[in-house]
Every structure is written in C-alpha cells, then in structure tokens.
C-alpha cells in the first residue's frame, strides 16, 4: 500500500484526540461565494493528522459537509451525483432502514435537525474550557464576517465524576475502547482492534480503504467515492447522532431487574449491568473476566480488547446479545471473523449534559417523578462514526446488529440499550447452571436512548478542502 500522507488527512479521522472539551458548530451557507470564502480562510486552521511533536495543541479544528452543504457550495453536478445515494439522501431519509422510528423518528428530533438546514459541521476540541471558548470566539467571528450562518452549537465533554475526568457516559459505563486499526493509520496495533487472522488468535490492521476513500478495502476494491478521485482520496464519511440518554429509566430498570436476577455474585447488580454491554462498568471485558472487574485488564492495551467468543458460543460469559458482541462479533459468526471485517466502524464520541451522581443508596427504588426528572435532563452522547461506506458499514451495523438479531441467532431481539423497542420484546442473558451466573430474560423493555437528530457528512482531505474553496473541483 502507499504511505499515508498525514498532512493531507484531517486529524479527527486518524485519531481520537482524547481532549476533554468539544463544541460542534453547525453552519448554513447562504450562497456558494461566502461559503468558499469562509473555507479559504479556515484552511490554515484545520487540524491535520500530522504528529504533535511538541505535545497536544490547546485546541483543534475540523470540518465536514452534508450533501446539501456540498450542493450549496455549487460543486459540479457531475460530482454531486457521483456521491453514494445514502449520503445524498441524508440520515433523516434513512430513518426506516436505521430503525429510527417511534420516539426516535425525525419528527421528534431537535428543531436544528428537523429543519434540515445544516450544511457543515465545524468541530472544536480543546484541552480546557477556556481554550475551547477562545477558539470558538475566533472562529465564530470569522464565520460571521463571511456571511455564513452559525445555526447552533452542541457542547460535549468528558464527564467529571467525584472530581475526576473520566471516559464514562451517563449510564456509568466506561467508553472508548476498541476502535479498529487500519493499515498505515496506526503507529502500533493493539490485539483485538483490527481483523482476526486465520490462526484465530492474531490480529492485523484492516485495509485502509475501510476508513479512507481512495485506498483498497477488505475486498480489494476501492470504496464507492465521488469523482474526481482527488476530491475523495484521504477523505471519509461521518455519521453524527445526538443520542439522549434516559438515565432515570436506565437506573430504575437496572434496580428492578437486579432484584429479580437471583445471582449469588457479591455484586449482582453490577454483574447484571455488565451483561447488558459485555463490559463491567469499569471497562473490564466480561469475556476475559466474567466474575469481577479487573483494572489490570482495563489499563493494559494488550488485554483490554484482546478476546474472542469462540469458546463462549452459548453466551454464558458474554451474552450473545450484549452490546459489544453485537457491534463487533469478532469470531462469533465463525470463519475466523471474516464475516465482520467489512462491517467495522470507527467511533468518535463524547458525552454531553450534566452528570447526576448515583444517590447515597443506589439500590433504593426511584419514584416516578425522580425517573422523569432524570430522564428529562438534556444529556447523552454525541456519537460520531467514521467509515468509507455508510451503507455497508454504519447502516449495516445499525440495521442488522443493533436493530435485529438474526445474524446472532437471536431472532428479532435488538440491542438492549440502543434498540428502539416495541411491546413484547425481550433481552436474553444466557448464563449457565452456576448460582452466580443464572440465566435471565428481561422483558417490558423501555427505550433507554432516544435519537435527537444528526446527519451524514463528508469529511474531505486538506487538498479537497482547498479545491472546494478555490472552485477547482473538476469531475472531467
């Protein structure tokens, strides 16, 4: 493969910045000229994938466009129609495929996403709130001066719990493990992060073309991409989803079912919480450590994503429908994982909204009004996905593995926390015959997470940004 040019790829694509503060600004272009002018001004500020030799900068800037944004930029029609159809349609039009129905249907989304005026995503990540505000002030002055409209901004940031910065989300799970490794993208690879080799044990990076346009993918093909090639190469597609978390519903559900779980484990409630996701809430994979959390595993990159399901076909350690097993089945479908290599996605995300600590007695029943208050607080996760092909990667995972269970022989069961549940559904915890690990069917499933909006974006290379800004995109 060719060596990647990190200075041509937006830094947000190549790595998670691991910065605690972020603000995602959403822009509307009133006309192509002002939008191109803004892009030209922004170009020098866009953070690339180049290594930070002097340590992390105070803040970063990245930009991506919806299809409507590219149309507003007046890209040539021959270029516009060459984008994949799901990107042209946008996420709202894909609601039925994605299971974004019921409470998650577009008519319930935030006004920003219902109206469909978003043309660009301008992301700032920062080390401190002060650095975030400073960069935001600078950028919003620039945006306003060009006549481009700043529609809205979404703040997000690492949760501070007991005075400590964490990588937890509002339900209490430690997040951010297990992004895939790609050839040429990662300096070092981590076991469990790429694809499983035929020996069933060793992991190797996935083909670059699973993440970046312009490179061969796992099928040895170039991903479907717009013309000209230079507009697409080193770019990728991004999914932005604002996922509201119903914290009261989650805590009440966990307490209710923990009381019925019947595990003799010292901490049956935590064990049950771990069965929902496939990791203990401290991050320990239950496939590696089913009986208790183990910080030694969590902290060791050689261990915290290195596991397979081949020896756990019955799901007695990690339930077959647990979140991590659904979205990355590893070897669970046989063939040494070959069936999953074209369905991997890179996730970037941060929580938003205030964290509410657990009450002094976390097992005390919650009143209906306490549940309602916890649920109605505006908080959740800004969930972002990067992948070369929206339909083959993100949409497949969301439709087949989150919203359906057939591949895992689970019939219509959905992901417990992310699924849009209907009456009569259940979540199965297989367990075994030991007292500490009983089976359980959870029923009357509420909706833990609600989609509040989002869209599909094209995240171009630095070269492509310059071409767009200078009106040089030529599909011929």
């Amino acid at each position, binding site marked *: 493969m060719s060596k990647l040019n990190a200075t041509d790829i937006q830094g947000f694509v190549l790595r998670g910045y691991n910065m605690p503060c972020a603000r995602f600004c959403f822009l509307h272009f009133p006309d192509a000229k002002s939008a191109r002018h803004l892009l030209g001004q922004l170009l020098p500020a866009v953070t690339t994938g180049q290594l930070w030799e002097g340590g992390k900068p105070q803040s970063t800037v990245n930009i991506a466009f919806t299809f409507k944004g590219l149309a507003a930029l007046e890209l040539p029609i021959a270029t516009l129609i060459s984008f994949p159809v799901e990107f042209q349609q946008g996420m709202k039009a894909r609601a039925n495929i994605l*299971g974004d129905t019921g409470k998650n249907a577009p008519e319930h989304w935030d006004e920003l996403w219902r109206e469909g005026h978003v043309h660009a995503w301008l992301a700032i990540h920062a080390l401190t709130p002060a650095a975030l505000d400073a960069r935001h002030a600078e950028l919003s002055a620039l945006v306003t001066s060009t006549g481009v409209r700043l529609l809205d901004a979404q703040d997000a940031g690492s949760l501070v719990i007991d005075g400590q910065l964490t990588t937890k989300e509002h339900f209490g799970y430690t997040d951010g493990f297990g992004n895939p490794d790609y050839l040429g993208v990662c300096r070092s690879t981590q076991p469990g992060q790429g694809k499983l080799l035929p020996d069933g044990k060793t992991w190797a990076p996935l083909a670059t073309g699973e993440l970046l346009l312009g490179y061969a993918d796992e099928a040895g093909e170039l991903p479907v991409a717009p013309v000209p090639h230079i507009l697409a190469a080193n770019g990728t597609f991004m999914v932005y989803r604002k996922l509201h978390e119903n914290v009261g519903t989650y805590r009440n559900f966990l307490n209710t079912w923990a009381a*019925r779980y*019947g595990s003799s484990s010292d901490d049956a409630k935590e064990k049950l919480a771990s069965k929902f996701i496939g990791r203990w809430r401290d991050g320990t994979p239950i496939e590696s450590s089913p009986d208790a959390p183990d910080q030694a595993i969590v902290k060791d990159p050689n261990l915290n994503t290195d596991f397979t399901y081949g020896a756990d076909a019955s799901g007695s350690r990690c339930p077959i429908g647990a979140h991590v097993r659904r979205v990355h089945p590893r070897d669970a479908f046989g063939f040494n994982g070959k069936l999953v290599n074209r369905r991997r996605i890179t996730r970037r995300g941060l929580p938003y909204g205030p964290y509410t600590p657990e009450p002094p007695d976390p097992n005390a029943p919650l009143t209906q009004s306490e549940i309602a208050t916890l649920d109605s607080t505006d908080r959740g996760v800004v969930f972002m996905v990067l992948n070369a092909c929206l339909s083959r990667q993100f949409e497949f995972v969301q*439709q087949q593995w989150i*919203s*359906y269970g057939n591949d895992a022989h689970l*019939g*219509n069961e*959905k992901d417990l926390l992310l699924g849009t*549940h*209907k*009456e*009569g*559904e*259940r979540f*199965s915890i297989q367990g075994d015959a030991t007292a500490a690990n009983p*089976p*359980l*069917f959870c*029923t009357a499933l509420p909706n833990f997470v609600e989609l509040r909006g989002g869209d599909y974006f094209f995240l171009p290379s630095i070269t492509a940004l310059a071409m767009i800004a200078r009106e040089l995109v030529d599909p011929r």
Partner: protein
Amino acid sequence: MSNQNGSVFGLTFLCPILNDAAASPSHDLQIRDYLSTLDTRAGSPFAIAPGTHLARLAVMDDVIFVGSPAIEEHLQSKYLVFETNCDSDVDPYIRGLASAVPEHLDAVWQHCTGYPGAADATKLVAYMKACQIPTSFFFAAVNNKSVTQTLTALQTQQAVAHFIASHQGMEPAQLQREFLSFVQTLRALPCPAPCSIIPTGGPR
C-alpha cells in the same frame, strides 16, 4: 446431489412462454401482470399449497448483451423461471400445487408453450419434468426440517420464551407443575399455518 440438500429439495423449471405476435398484451406481459397481483403472505399460492419453504417466479426476457468483446446472442423464446425450495421431489410437489391452487397454476402457465392444464396432474407432472433443469447448488433456509416442522419449531420457540419470561424466579415445585401443564398445552397445539407466526416487535 442435484435437486436435493438434506431433506429439502431445490427445483428449477424453465418454461418457454408462448410467442404469439397477435397476442396483446404479449403473453410475458400477461404473466408479469398476474404475478404482480399475487399475495406474498398468507394468501400466496405457496402458503396455501403444502410444502414450500421459498419460491420465486420470474420472467426471463432474453440474455443481455453486455457489449464487445462479448458475442451478441439471443434466446429463442422468453421463459418463465420457477425456482422452489420444497419438501418433496417434482411428482408429489407438483401434484400438491395442482390440487391446492389449480386456478393460480392455470392463470400463470396458460401463457406457456405446451402447458397441459392443472386438471390432469399426471400430464402436468410430465410437462414440468420436461421443463426441469438440474439444480446443482441452491440456498435452503432450513436444510433438514420440513415446513411443518419449521413452523412448529417457531411456535415452540416463541411459547417457551414467553413461558420463561413469565415464570422465571418462581418457586421450583410450582414451576415444575406449571411447566408440565405448559408442555401438555403446547403438544396439543396444531401446526400453525404458514405466515401465521408474527415475530414480537419485528423490525420490518
């Protein structure tokens, strides 16, 4: 072995469609028109007649010329393609269709050359055998279970899941009593009709 995988059969028939320049609309269009109105669920002829796992009817117009260096070739007629995954070989399977849904067979196949009609099952079987081509490799949704066994298994799976969900944690002696009574009830249930098992909370 061609045409069979486990206890499931994969049968393929290519029936030439009448080439009558005077027919308007043409016979292939009349087949397409009729097929487009067929129910695909409980009212489907393949749900009404016994023993079909999956079936597909399609009109094949011609081979498509994909451009040079391929050679331009054409079929001598249009064909009705009938592919089916079913529980028995041609003879009993076609007799089952002829007895359960003769009106559908006639409505579709009357547009095919040499079709003898569904009323005479022996002639119909001979006709279909003449049109059959070997099916060497096919997709079987379920390899070794009949349609009846599959439907009963789905019914059992749903009932057992419901039983567990509503009885888990129950005191053992009572659980055993209720389980034994549940098993008796379940055994007494008739095989559900095709398309009658509605998945709970189904995604589509």
